[in-house]
Each structure stands twice: as C-alpha cells, then as structure tokens.
C-alpha cells in the first residue's frame, strides 16, 4: 500500500521537473522562432543584399533606407581592435599572476581583477564618459571625444577580466611535467613560458578569446554612452553606431516597419554569435587534438 504511494509521488515529481524542462525548451525555441518570424520578413522586404551591404541607414527618410553595412563594419572593427589589444595584455597578466608571482600576491591580484568582471556595464560607460571621452578629445584635438576609439578603450577594460581569468585557468592547468622537463634541459622560465606554456594552453586561450569577442560584439550600454552614435562608416576618430546600439537608439520611436528591421538587426547579431561560436569551437577542437 505504502509502496504504491511512493510510486505516485515519484511520478508526480518526475512530471513536474519534466514540465519545467519542457517550458525552458519551448522558450528557447520560441526566442529563435520569434526572431526569425519577426525579423525575417522585414529583411526580405528590404532585400537581403541592400540590408547587409547597404551603406546608408536613414529610417526617417521617405522611403526609409535600411542599410546596416556601417553598423556591421563598426561592430567588426571595434571587436577586432579590442581583442587585438586585450588578448596580449591578458596573457601577460595571466602569466604574471599564475606563474611568476608568489602564490599569495598572485591570488590577491586575481581577486582584485575579478572585481572588474562584476561591474555593471553602465558604470563602464559612465567612467568612459568622464575619463576616456575627454582624454581622447584632448589628445587628438577633436571637437568631440565620442568616437570609436573611446568605445574600443572602454571595451578593452571590460573584456580584460574575462580573458585574464579564463586564460590563467588554462595556463595553470598545463602539465607541470612539461615545465620540469624544460628546466632539466636548462631552459629559462621566461623562455619556457612563451615556448611551452602558451602553446600547451592554446585551446584554453582560444576559449578566452571567444568569450572576449562575444562580450565585445554584444556590449551595448557601455558603448552607446561613448561611441557618439552616428550611423556612418567606421573610423577610429569618428563617432560610430554599432549593431547593438542601433537597436537601442531607434527602438523607442521606431515605426512598425523600422521595428521589424531592428529585430532583423537582432537576428544578424544572433547569427554572428552562432558563427563565432562554431568557428572557435572548431579551432579549439583542433588545438585540443594536436596537444592531446
């Protein structure tokens, strides 16, 4: 009799967790479908080629022009330069706190840097507005410091903690035997760091780069405050508008048609993230195989 009851409770519980899993599953699918159904037709209406390769964005024109090439290039350039500068810095810092410094000092610095990771992006934007923007304006003698350069500087600071912590984890996970073998052969530590540790930690560092790219492409609020937000082709010392900031800027006063196009931009971002993920996954697998 009692056994029967336990059985019922078990089944009820199983049904409940299955139901929760189902809701999660459906909402994941819903997001995808919703983005495609709402953004897809607008893209088709504008024409995929005009949409992706059109150089002019002017939603207030009659008829409106919805070319997002400038946004795509701006996002691409700023991400590229951010990663280009943030990755070498991060690797050096990761080597310092993971390999060179005494353990105590290393862990203190590690926790200080990890504090950066939790800071809300609006605070980064606010700091950028106070420090970076006037700085860029003065150094380059511009009429306004709201430029792509300012947003790249802010993005570098924002991506540092993520890239540092992930690459440090992979650097510390490298087999100690490799280093010991190198020392036994008379290799200096400084030399071994670059010829043994970094190549062996390659796949982990790739993951770190992937996270950095994801954060730089997707960042919105920090860059909207410092990028100047003018839809034009990217240039370091000019104001630019990114894919993410384009959505925020026009969403509040968008017409029905523009709103569809903005969801289309969201779709483009979605696809970018997918592509970046798959490409890096491929490389990480490859790098893992060579080392393994």
């Amino acid at each position, binding site marked *: 009799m009692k056994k029967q009851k*336990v059985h019922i*409770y*078990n089944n009820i*519980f*199983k049904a409940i*967790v*299955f*139901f*929760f*899993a189902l*809701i*999660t*599953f459906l909402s*994941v699918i*819903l*997001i995808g479908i*919703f983005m495609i159904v*709402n953004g897809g037709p607008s893209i088709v209406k504008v024409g995929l080629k005009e949409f992706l390769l059109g150089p002019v964005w002017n939603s207030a024109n009659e008829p409106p022009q919805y070319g997002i090439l400038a946004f795509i290039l701006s996002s691409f350039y700023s991400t590229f330069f951010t990663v280009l500068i943030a990755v070498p810095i991060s690797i*050096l*810092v990761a*080597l*310092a706190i993971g390999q*060179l410094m005494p353990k105590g000092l290393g862990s203190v610095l590690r926790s*200080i*840097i*990890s*504090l*950066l990771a*939790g*800071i*809300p*992006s*609006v*605070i980064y*934007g*606010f*700091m950028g507005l106070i420090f970076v923007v006037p700085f860029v304006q003065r150094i380059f003698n511009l009429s306004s410091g709201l430029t792509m350069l300012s947003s790249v500087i802010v993005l570098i*600071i924002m991506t*540092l903690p993520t890239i540092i912590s992930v690459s440090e984890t992979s650097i510390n996970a490298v087999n100690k035997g490799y280093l010991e073998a190198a020392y036994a052969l008379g290799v*200096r530590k*400084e*030399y071994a*760091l*670059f010829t043994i540790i970094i190549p062996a930690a390659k796949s982990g560092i790739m993951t770190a780069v992937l996270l950095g790219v994801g954060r730089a492409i*997707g960042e*919105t*609020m920090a860059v909207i*405050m410092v990028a100047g937000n003018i839809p034009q082709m990217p240039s370091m010392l000019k104001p630019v508008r990114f894919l*993410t900031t384009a*959505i*925020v800027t026009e*969403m509040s006063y968008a017409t029905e048609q523009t*709103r569809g196009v903005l*969801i289309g931009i*969201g779709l483009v*971002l*979605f696809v970018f*993230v*997918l592509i970046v*993920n798959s490409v890096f996954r491929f490389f990480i697998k490859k790098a893992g195989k060579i080392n393994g």
Partner: protein
Amino acid sequence: MDKNIYDKQIRPGVIAVRALIYTVTAAVVTLVVAIIVYLIIKGLPYINWELLSTAPSRLNETYGIAPMIINTLYIVLITLVVSIPLGIGTAIYLAEYSKPGKIISAFRFAIEILAGIPSIVYGLFGLAFFVNTLRIGSGSGSMLSGALTCALIVLPTMIRTTEEALLQVNPTYREAAFSLGASKLHIIRTILLPCALPGIVVAVILSIGRIVSESAALLYTAGVDYTMPTNFAKHIVEPGAGLTVQLYLYATEGGAPDWVPYAMAAILMILVFVINLTANIIAGLFKKKVSVK
C-alpha cells in the same frame, strides 16, 4: 678569467621579459584599483538617508533613488521566483531523468547558444513578445515583462551551474541509497539536493548580480518611470527604471545634479561587490567541505 658556472648569468632578454610582464600587470591592477577607488570616493559622501528614501521631485528638490531601488528589488525578486523553479527543475531533469539522445543534446546546444546571446537581443525579444504581443502590464514596459526577460537571461547559467553541482555529488552516495531501496525522489530530496545546495546557492547569488547589473535588456521591457510606486501589488504591471537604467539616463540625458550618478554608481558597485563576495565565500566553504571528504 674563468667564470664560475654557478654564478647566475644575467641575460638582458630574461630581464626584458620579466620587466614587460610585471609592467603590464602593474598597469592593469593600478587601473582597476583606480577605477574602483575613484568611483567609491566620489560617490560615497553623497550617500545618505535622504537619497535612499526619497523619490526624484522637482517640487521638493529631492533627487532620491528610492523608486529605483524598489524597482531593482521587484525585478530581482520576480526573476528569481520564475527562474529558480524553472532552472533547478530543468537541471534535475537533465541530470537525473533525461536519457541521452538527439533531442537532449540539441537542447543542451540551444542552452549554450542562449548563454552567448547579447542581452540587447533578449531585450528586443522581451519588448516584441512580453510587452507588445502578450501585452503584460503597461505598453511602455512593466516590472513583470522586465523580470521575465531577465529570467530568460539567467536561465542558461542557472541550469548549467545546478546541473554541474548535481553531477559532482559523489556517485557512491547515490548507489548506496539505491541499494538500500530508496526511491529516486527520496534520493534527490534527501541526498542530491542537500549535497548540491551550496552550488545552487552560488548560482542564484551570481544570477542576482547579473540582474542587478543588467540594463540593455531592461530599458524597453521594464520602462523608464521614476515615480514612487503607490500600490505594491499593482506595481508589478507598472513601468519603472532600476538603478542601472536610471544611471544611464542621468549620465546621458541629465536631469539631476552631477553628484547623483556618482552616488548611484558607488551604490551599484558596493552592491555588486557584496553579492560577488558572498558567492565567493560560499563557493570557498563548499570547496573546503568537498576536499575534507
């Protein structure tokens, strides 16, 4: 003339490498400390009871942030109410009940993709779906719409962390319980969940941090109102800006004296630090406990 081979040779290359690494590290750490210290020193003197307890009002000349604190609290609470059962339930299902197969691995892949999507895309979805299609609350956003959007954002992390915590429970516990004839529900309730609890708590705390710092997804789903809520039940369907969104508005559009955004930034920073510190301490205790075993 002969050099002793035990003397360490000083090589310029080695010194240069060390100098480079230490300089870069020192620069990064100085920058971090400078940012944090500057904001807190600039903002801290303005934090007082009046700021924390009043609403912005031209008439009374107050620039308080009480409504934003309340809005942030609303969003955090509603998000947790929605995402904790969903996240933990899904994790239990994935870890304990699901059989490996194509659908489950597709699901895992989808969750992983979700974790990488920029929050502005979630905001876009929330606006189009919760606000415009389902019409939850007011047309310019509501606490509930914002919280549902946030729930979608924190779900992937919550599911993954909980599942990891469940899978880390020593398998012999489970086997021992099974061999004694315990039912699956009993094992989950009395063994797996208690053992995985610290991991789950850390996941929840980190989610709170994420929601507190979220802004892009909330701007158009939760709205931008800053009046003091009058009816606490009705406020769920009313729009309102949280701390981050209001800080963004003050910093870009003005509307308050210069010190207000500094004070808000300092409060946000301290809040986020406390949240992350708590998560770290709990995670540290958990690690110690596991290693003792």
